[in-house]
Every structure is written in structure tokens, then in C-alpha cells.
């Protein structure tokens, strides 16, 4: 592990060093303000600018499609990115440096909830305006948030507790079907369940109940794995969890009342962007607190040496059980959101491929780290979308990238680092700038 080395940018030499020192003392708040300005610019000036430059439409994912598909338009896309994103963000962040530092300092004087809410509000504002441009962006973001939840919850088991659990898509499937049955049965007319039982106006309010219901079903399912985990671990537990995954998938395929292998559709459109965002934030918040609690430290103790942990009065059975059920709960909630984002689920979704995807995100981002999980989920899901124009070659490049990451950083990009909200939001002191 290296120390975080962001306090001495002056050590770096050259043009890059100069650039980093110019942008060093900017707090997260400053970058968020810059991003907000950029997306507002794109919202109002994007279309006229696109006409002027000669692009077809606004580059949806930072020009990834254009770079890979239409090389002739690369200069136009580069100009667009420069004018809309790079320059405004850089200018606003740099010019507002002392202002944002002072503001961040002021905010930190309030209880921690206030600055957190301000930051999240700004982040959501930027994301919302950014996603307003196209429905594709909205879908990408929603799936990204679901991926963050999944990755974090798998990291609790695979990273913090050190087991190799393969059952996550199974938990996700349980949650997805639990929540879908709840909402479809109560609020929508469907060929399997008939007319809605409750007035549809209640739906959005009871949607969280449905998600929690799905999560609870998933955590009940987790008992199947948690109880054998008292007696075995490592590879045998991996197989037990793998068997669980296949059992869940096969069971759903055989349950005719949820549609069998054809899947279940007709979920009402409750999972809009704010809902998914709020759930993702809740998930990050709760899991982060969980892994920093005594129980969370007990997970690390069980991972590093079970006998020693037991001797130091860690109740290993209770720890394992709680960790599995907790992680499964969040995987179930993520599954429920996933089902409502796509508004269709079928058992085939929750197979080995999903497993490989989630595992890749966890190990790419970094074990035992909330930062890592967020990084892994965001980067791999955005990369997956950005490389979409490459079609099949995407599945050469992404695995290759992962292999390289595994070879050079075997525990992932940002492993074993604590996520401290206070540290993230703090104003950054700089020698020439008072805070």
C-alpha cells in the first residue's frame, strides 16, 4: 500500500507536474461546481455548437462512439469536448478555487449531514442535467448505479471477509423476482397476476417496501450459504455458492407463476434516476458504516485468521452470518432496481456471465475498499458502454485490461483504503492560499 501523496504536488517535474500544481488545491466541491457549469453549458449551448462544428448530435459518451466509429469527426468531437467539458471545468474549478475552499470550510462547520447533502445535491444536479440530453445516458447511469451497489455488496464478502462467493447473481435474482412480483402483483395489470390489487397512485411510495422485500428474500437465501460456511471455507464454499447460484436460476426457470424461462415483464416504471441514485447513495453510506463498525472489523479478523479471531472473542459464526445476509440484502435490492430499470427480467440474466461481470468489477476496483468498488463499477460499466461500437472486440479488450490490472496490481486498483466522507469533502489547504 502506498500513502496518499496529494499534498506535495510540487515534487513532480515537467509540464504534467506544472499542470497538477495548478489544479492541486481544488476541493471536490470545486470540481463539482465545474462539472455543473459544464453540463449546464452542454444543455443550453450543446445543440447550436454541434451544428456549428458539423457533428450529427451531441457526443453521448464523451465522444467514444465517434472516436471508434467515425474517425473523420474526431476533430469536431475533440473541439466539442474541449469547449464544453475541459475548458469550463478547468476554468471554473481553478478560478473558484479559493471560493470553493472557503465554502467547503464553512460547510464543514455544520454537522456532517449538511456538507454531505450539499455535495450529493451538486453531484446529482450535474448528473441529472447531463443525463437530460439522451435516454441512453439515463439508462447507462441507472445501470451504473446498480452495478455500484452490486459490487459493493460483493466486496463485503469477497474483500472484507475474504471468501470467494459466486452466489451474487443468485441473490440478485431473488431480489429482482421478489421486488418484481411485489410491484407487478400490487400495481400493474399483468397476464400472470391479473389486475392490480392496490391503486396505482400508491405505487411509487410502496416501491421501497418492494425493494426491501426483495432484499429480505435474498438474505433469507443467503442462509443456505452462511450455514455451511461455519464448517468450510475457501474452495468448498465457492462451490456451495456456485451450486446455490445454479439452484436459484434453475428454480426460477421452473416456477411457472413468475413466467419460467420466458421471464417476467410489466414492472411499473418506478426506478427513475433519482430513485436509483438515492438507493445507491444509501447503499454506499450503510455499507461504508458497516465495514467501519466493530462488526466490519470482525470481518477482517475472520479473513486474516479465523482461529485468532475466535480467540479474541469474535463470534465468527455470527459475523459470517451477518455478513452474508447483509451483502445478500443489498444484492437483492440492487436486483430489484435492476429489474425495474429494465422492466423485464429472465432467469438467463443471472448466470455465469453476470457473475464474471460482478467479480471483474470487484477485483478490478480493489478488494476491501469502498473507493475501489465504486471505481471498479463506474469504470467498467462506462468502459463497457464506451467500447460498444467495437462490438465483439470489446470482449477481447476488457478481459485483457483486467488481466493486466491483475498482473500489475493483484488486489485491484484501489485496495485496502478507507472511505472517509469527511476527508473527501475537506477543503484543501495550499501554501499560497488560505483556507
Amino acid at each position, binding site marked *: 500500500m502506498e500513502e496518499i501523496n496529494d499534498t506535495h504536488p510540487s515534487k513532480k517535474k515537467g509540464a504534467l507536474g506544472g499542470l497538477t500544481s495548478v489544479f492541486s488545491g481544488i476541493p471536490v466541491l470545486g470540481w463539482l461546481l465545474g462539472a455543473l457549469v459544464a453540463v449546464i453549458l452542454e444543455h443550453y449551448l450543446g445543440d447550436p455548437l454541434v451544428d456549428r462544428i458539423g457533428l450529427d448530435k451531441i457526443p453521448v459518451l464523451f465522444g467514444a462512439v465517434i472516436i471508434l466509429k467515425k474517425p473523420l469527426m474526431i476533430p469536431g468531437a475533440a473541439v466539442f469536448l474541449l469547449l464544453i467539458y475541459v475548458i469550463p471545468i478547468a476554468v471554473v474549478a481553478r478560478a473558484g478555487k479559493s471560493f470553493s475552499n472557503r465554502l467547503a470550510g464553512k460547510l464543514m462547520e455544520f454537522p456532517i449531514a449538511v456538507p454531505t447533502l450539499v455535495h450529493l445535491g451538486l453531484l446529482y444536479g450535474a448528473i441529472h442535467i447531463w443525463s437530460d440530453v439522451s435516454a441512453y445516458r439515463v439508462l447507462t447511469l441507472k445501470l451504473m448505479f446498480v452495478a455500484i451497489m452490486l459490487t459493493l455488496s460483493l466486496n463485503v464478502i*469477497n474483500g472484507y471477509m*475474504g*471468501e*470467494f462467493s459466486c452466489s451474487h447473481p443468485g441473490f440478485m435474482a431473488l431480489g429482482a423476482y421478489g421486488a418484481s412480483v411485489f410491484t407487478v402483483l400490487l400495481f400493474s395489470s399483468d397476464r400472470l397476476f391479473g389486475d392490480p390489487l392496490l391503486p396505482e397512485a400508491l405505487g411509487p411510495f410502496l416501491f421501497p417496501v418492494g425493494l426491501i422485500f426483495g432484499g429480505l428474500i435474498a438474505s433469507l437465501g443467503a442462509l*443456505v450459504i452462511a*450455514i*455451511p460456511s461455519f*464448517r*468450510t*471455507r*475457501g*474452495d*468448498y464454499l*465457492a*462451490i*456451495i455458492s*456456485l*451450486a*446455490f447460484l*445454479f*439452484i436459484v*436460476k*434453475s*428454480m426460477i*426457470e*421452473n416456477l411457472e407463476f413468475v413466467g419460467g424461462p420466458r421471464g417476467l415483464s410489466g414492472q411499473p416504471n418506478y426506478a427513475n434516476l433519482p430513485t436509483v441514485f438515492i438507493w445507491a447513495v444509501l447503499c454506499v453510506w450503510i455499507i461504508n458504516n458497516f465495514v467501519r463498525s466493530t462488526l466490519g472489523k470482525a470481518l477482517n479478523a475472520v479473513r486474516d*485468521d*479465523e*482461529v485468532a479471531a*475466535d480467540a479474541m472473542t469474535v463470534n465468527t459464526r455470527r459475523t459470517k452470518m451477518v455478513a452474508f445476509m447483509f451483502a445478500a440484502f443489498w444484492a437483492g435490492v440492487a436486483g430489484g432496481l435492476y429489474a425495474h430499470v429494465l422492466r423485464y427480467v429472465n432467469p438467463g440474466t443471472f448466470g*455465469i456471465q453476470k457473475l*464474471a461481470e460482478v*467479480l*471483474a468489477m470487484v*477485483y478490478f476496483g480493489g*478488494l476491501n475498499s469502498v473507493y475501489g468498488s465504486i471505481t471498479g463499477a463506474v469504470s467498467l460499466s462506462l468502459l463497457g458502454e464506451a467500447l460498444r461500437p467495437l462490438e*465483439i*472486440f470489446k*470482449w*477481447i479488450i476488457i*478481459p*485483457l485490461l*483486467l*488481466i493486466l490490472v*491483475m*498482473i500489475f496490481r*493483484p*488486489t485491484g486498483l484501489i485496495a485496502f483504503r478507507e472511505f472517509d466522507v469527511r476527508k473527501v469533502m475537506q477543503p484543501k489547504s495550499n501554501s499560497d492560499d488560505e483556507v
Partner: protein
Amino acid sequence: MVFFFQNLINALQWGSFYAMIALGYSMVYSILMLFNFAHGDIFMVGAYIGFGVATGLVALSASGFLALPGWMILVLTILLSMFLTSFVGMIVERVGYRPLRDAPRASAAITGLMIGIMLETGNLILLGARRVSFPPLIESVTYNVGGVFVTNKKIMIVLVSLSFMLALHLFVQKTRYGMAMRAMAFDYVVVPLLGIPINTIARLTFAIGSALAAVAGILFGVAYPVLDPYMGIVFGWKAFVAAILGGRGSIMGATLAGFLMGFIEIFVAMVFPSTLRDLIAYSIILLILVFRPHGFFGEPYSARLRL
């Protein structure tokens, strides 16, 4: 009773595929304590290499340049594909496993998974998303033994795979390389001190495992002559389950568990609707592991083992 024996024959054939693949997992596991998650896809690659070799030999034979009988082509196909596929295994070892030998074990599992995806995708890019059919090399002859129908292919498959398993057993027990493998499985730290080149042994293990997977792939192609790029996933994961079920790193256990896997699948499908096959098969395996968590021939769990 006739029905039972009929299914027994089918289960033997089906189980020999699983057993052959499970052996590859188990061998790599026993010496490196790592699972080669790309192994299912090496099975697929082996089947495709076998397809290529067999098609080439059939064409060569048809052109009259080298008139070979069908069984001769099959033997040549098996030998050539074993040779070629073992290189795939060695490359996988070099790229995905050797750099990660001292890393957390799960990282190597990820590289294995990713190499598997790359092999599938590479196959899709090279051959396109169509299924290919394995050329029929030997004439199918059906014998009626007291009402039980046995084809010569089934007998051939079971016999060939059993003889390869026996050969592997002899290799591991009787040769110097086999002894080195067993030594590595016994104590990974001391073995290099005794002058045993662990890299060579690891490479050899991957090569042998891949060669066995290639045999399984060709035999599969002979029995079910339709190959597709994703065939390795289903077989690979089930064989992986069998390898664990047999006990960690136990060759005997992997063989038995592979056959058991085949038996469970065939007999579940015989009694219940076939859609319930995976559900019941995996439930049985889950139960076995709950009551015997270290598999058939594995050592009991001690809390000191680390992932």
C-alpha cells in the same frame, strides 16, 4: 431393469466427459492451489482444434493423397489435437498464472475467467457465430445386448477416456515428473530447494490437463457432433464442481466425482422432468458438501487454510 442399464451406459459416457475435464482442474489445483477457470474454454478450444484437424485429415484422405481409414483419422486427430491444445494450456499458464503465483488466489481466478472470455470471443471472431459440425469419422454401429442398445461410439468413448485416466495415474505415480508433481502438491515451498524446476512442472501440468481436455472435446464431438463457442461454459463449470466434490487435488476423487456428476444428471433426467435436472443435481451436490465439506478424498477443513 433394461431401462436402468440403458441409462447407466449413457451416464458412463456423459460422466467420462466430466471426469476428463475435472482431472485438468484437479491436477492444476493440486500443485498450484489455483483453479484454472479457463479450463472449460480450453475444452472448447480442444474440440475446435480437433474439428480443424479432423476436417483437414478427412479432406486429405478424400483427395486420395493419403487414404486413411476413419479410425486412423480419429487416432491421429486425438494425438495431434492433444499436442496442439497443450500449447494453449502452456500459454494460459505463462500469461495468466505464472505472474500471479504469489498474488491472492482470487486474482488468478479472475485472470482465468478473463482468459476464458477471450478464448470464447477469439473463437467467435475467427469462425463467426455459427455452430460447426464435427465430421463423422467412424460408422455408428448399434449392438443390442438383452434389450440394451449400445453403440460402438459409446464403448469407444468410455474405453478411451478410462485408458487416458489410467495413463495419467501411471504417469503421476511411476515417472520422475509425476513424482515432482506429487512433491509440489505435498509441499510447495521445499520443492524448489530440492532442485525441482517448479515452472517446468507447472507448465507440464497445464499441458497435460489441456491435452486431456482436448481428448474430452474430441470425444464430445464424436458423440454430439455440434460445437459452439460457449460449450465450454456449461461443461467447464460442472466439471469444476466435480473436481471440488472429489476432494481438493485428488485425481481419483475428480474421476469418481466426474462420473457421479454424469450419473446424477442422467438419472435425475430419467426420473423427473428434464427441466429440473440442474435444480436437483445441484441440490444433491449442495447436500453432499454440507455433510462432507471437504469432498470425497479431500483433507478435512482446518481454519488455517487461507484463500
